């Protein structure tokens, strides 16, 4: 029983570690946590990535683009309610306030992964690189969640 609990703890620790990334370079005070991607049927060539971006620096950080080996294209999009409908539009950037955070979540900002190169199955870990306006990059390992 103790061995089982220990295995569970190690597994949770490992997954938490994988979905947590720290930046190098200018954005060393930016931390990404709870990064995940929506699992999709194999016939689907798109999905969305979500995460929390925390900025511990005294300056605003601006996310300007993203990329991933798993998709031909990654774009920043934002969902919002407009005229009673959910509207999705490309966003030029995401401003992360100084000493603050922004949550990319369903119904809000997210990173669209377009033309997926392989199916996304629950439990897969996929790398996503975030590009910031100051030229720094952060690569985060996001776990695939869903069915």
């Amino acid at each position, binding site marked *: 029983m103790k061995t089982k609990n220990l295995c569970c703890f190690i597994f949770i620790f490992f997954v938490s570690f994988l979905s947590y990334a720290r930046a190098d370079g200018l954005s060393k005070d930016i931390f990404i946590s709870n990064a995940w991607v929506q699992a999709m049927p194999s016939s689907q060539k798109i999905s969305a990535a979500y995460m929390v971006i925390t900025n511990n620096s005294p300056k605003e950080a601006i996310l300007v683009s993203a990329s991933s080996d798993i998709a031909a294209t990654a774009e920043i999009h934002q969902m919002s309610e407009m005229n009673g409908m959910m509207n999705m539009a490309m966003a030029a950037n995401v401003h992360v306030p100084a000493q603050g955070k922004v949550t990319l979540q*369903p119904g809000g900002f997210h990173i669209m992964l377009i033309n997926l190169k392989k199916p996304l199955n629950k439990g897969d870990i996929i790398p996503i690189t975030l590009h910031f306006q100051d030229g720094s990059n952060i690569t985060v390992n996001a776990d695939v969640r869903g069915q």
Partner: protein
Amino acid sequence: MLMFVANKIIFLIVLLGVCFSWVGCESQEKTSTGMDLGVINPQRDFTLHDQDGKIFHLKDHRGEVILLFFGYTSCPDVCPTTLSKLARVYSLLGMGTRQKLLTLFVTIDPQRDTPQKLKEYLQYFNINAVGLSGTKQEIDKVVDAYKAMYEKVDTNSSALGYMFDHTDYLYLIDKEGKTSYLFHPEDKAQDMAQIIKGL
């Protein structure tokens, strides 16, 4: 004097009772979205084609509880999030209720959503669901009947091609075909399961 006080107390109890019953009636009319259910679904029936190419009539499903959703399989955010939540709702229901709960996914993108694509997509979410399609006119008729909305958006700057803005309600239709509740994306799976169990 005693009679006067007693009469006043009885009057107050009756008044409170009337107030509570009025509040109760009001809350039955309200939905999580605040939309007036009185304007929805006057016909209690519609006809489309299912994912196997057969004609689907809503009236053939009396005795089943229906969850109706308008979406499209290329939808990257709202639709998969909603269907994933529905998988949790189904898991919270007993076998009897689960078997009598049918999800209808009406595509607003018949151009890309072939019957086969709809079938594969819905099977993935592991719920008792049927994909429905038709001509644009047939789909629009159902969309209008339920006071839903959608709009095709061409995205020249995005690699996605075109997308749709659309309403994100889930319509809960009772065993007699009457729309009895509207679920909003913010509604919790546990709360939805409780309401469904009550039908």
